[in-house]
């Protein structure tokens, strides 16, 4: 229960910061100023927006399928929020430390699609219907390259547990029960004979441990943009053609929930990318002979310093990825539907399949 509340608060905080950042970043990239009036530099703008939304009337269209319409936002948010349950925030802080976290996450996020379809269908609106269908088509197809990219990580790490995957990517490797005698080698190749177990830092991140995961990371990142309906894959919400896509009929609190779910999804996919590829809560600074940078910036597990450092690194890496998502949104034009499907089925999926195969071979080099 406590974990639930804490995660919810944390998520709300991040989403509010993100909504503000989105507007400021967009403005700066277009040589504008963004919000300036509410609070210092307009920083209270997104808080005020939420308050405004909560005061608005909750309109349910007369011709809507009322049950579906009312239930959909809750289902969408619940599906995304449930994903946070298996995210390890620090070395010893994880809302639900289950052994098949990766599998659970992929499964629970797919529920999101059902909610989207309910919202689009229930609205009894053509824009909403079109948006929902595009959204579902897009999310279902992009789950395949994303899933394959994640699979390659799972093959390298030989684990479905997010926490175990996190421990493998840093100097705390041997502290995880069951991994006491594991060793990290440079690029994961034992034959090179460079032991990086105690060097840690960036050298033990998954994209460094097995450099081919860098390709998997790019694939996952592109697919995750599509899964969270972000530009350049935002045809489900294309403002200029569909008004707002599946949530066009929503207002007030229900719209706020959908909005929250959308931004939570962005945060979630970035968190997963960080955990699987970019060293999770591990510090990026390696131990260099005398300079024990990694030790200094990891803190002591089980104490406050470990929690703070872990949370700091995880969140700062996540924010870098989130910033990249924002920047991409304000840089690239929207893809056409056929281009979207082309990219998914003819480019990303075959490459991801190849990566899975190579990841298996790489794993053989690692042991």
């Amino acid at each position, binding site marked *: 229960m406590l974990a639930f509340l804490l995660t919810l608060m944390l998520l709300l905080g991040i989403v509010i910061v993100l909504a503000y950042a989105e507007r400021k970043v967009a403005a700066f*990239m277009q*040589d504008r*100023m963004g919000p*300036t009036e509410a609070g210092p530099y307009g920083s209270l703008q997104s808080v005020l927006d939420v308050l405004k939304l909560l005061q608005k009337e909750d309109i349910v269209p007369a011709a809507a399928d009322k049950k579906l319409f009312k239930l959909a936002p809750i289902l969408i948010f619940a599906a995304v929020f449930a994903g946070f349950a298996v995210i390890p925030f620090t070395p010893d802080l994880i809302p639900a430390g289950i052994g098949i976290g990766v599998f659970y996450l992929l499964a629970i996020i797919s529920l999101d699609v059902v909610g989207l379809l309910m919202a689009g269908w229930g609205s009894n609106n053509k824009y909403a219907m079109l948006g929902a269908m595009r959204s579902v088509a897009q999310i279902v197809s992009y789950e395949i390259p994303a899933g394959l990219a994640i699979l390659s990580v799972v093959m390298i790490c030989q684990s479905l547990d997010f926490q175990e995957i996190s421990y493998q990517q840093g100097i705390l490797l041997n502290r995880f029960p069951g991994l006491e005698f594991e060793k990290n080698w440079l690029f994961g190749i034992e034959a090179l004979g460079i032991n990086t177990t105690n060097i840690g830092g960036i050298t033990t991140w998954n994209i460094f441990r097995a450099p081919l995961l860098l390709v998997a990371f790019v694939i996952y990142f592109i697919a995750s943009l599509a899964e969270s309906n972000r530009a350049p894959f935002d045809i489900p919400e294309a403002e200029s053609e569909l008004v707002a896509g599946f949530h066009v009929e929503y207002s007030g609190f229900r719209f706020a929930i959908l909005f929250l779910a959308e931004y939570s999804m962005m945060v979630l996919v970035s968190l997963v990318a960080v955990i699987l590829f970019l060293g999770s809560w591990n510090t990026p600074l390696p131990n260099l002979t005398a300079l024990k940078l990694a030790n200094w910036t990891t803190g002591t597990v089980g104490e406050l310093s470990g929690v703070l450092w872990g949370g700091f690194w995880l969140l700062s890496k996540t924010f870098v990825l989130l910033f990249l998502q924002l*920047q991409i949104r*304000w*840089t690239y034009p929207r893809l056409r539907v056929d281009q979207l499907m082309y990219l998914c089925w003819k480019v990303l999926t075959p490459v991801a399949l190849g990566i899975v195969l190579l990841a298996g071979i790489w794993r053989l080099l690692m042991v």
Partner: protein
Amino acid sequence: MEKSSVQHKTGFWEVVKSLLSGLQLTWRHFRNADKRRAPVPVMDESYFKQPEGLVTLTYPYEAIPVPENGRYRLHNEIDDCIVCDLCAKICPVNCITIESVKATEEIGMTSDGTKKRLYAPVFDIDMAKCCYCGLCTTVCPTDCLTMTPVYDFAEVDIKNMIYHFTDLTPEQAEEKKQLLAKQQEEMAAAKSAALAARKQQ
């Protein structure tokens, strides 16, 4: 040579390169966000030479100064106005309304030494109709009708767009009218008396 410049670049690395250069562009703008355009007037040398930074001006707090010969809200210095009605006649949209009352004696002098002989109980300019052509200011013999640099004077009620420049209250105007009527009566009386006197001769 010319042909190759229009040729579309294709291939994986070209695409990656163009994607990266796109990101570079937005990143450059993001990095320059700490710079701001200075609110310099258009006459300034640097007006067209500020390629970087945010272009937004937070208008009510800062504004670009307007050129000196810009044509904005009119102002009439009623003390210098000789109520010659030239401005009202030249105005292409008839937005100046002047009523004049002859004074019984000389009222005074304008600042350029012209004698004032007329009161203006009504001197209204309807800024909502005005097209800011500036003709009235050029014909004004005493240069009392001028353009000010004020351009932000929107009103909620359109009636407020009519500016009253008269310095007489309605009572004063009434008084002046009666004075004039009285003087004219006296003059008429004097005239008829003189006429009668001449007839008797």
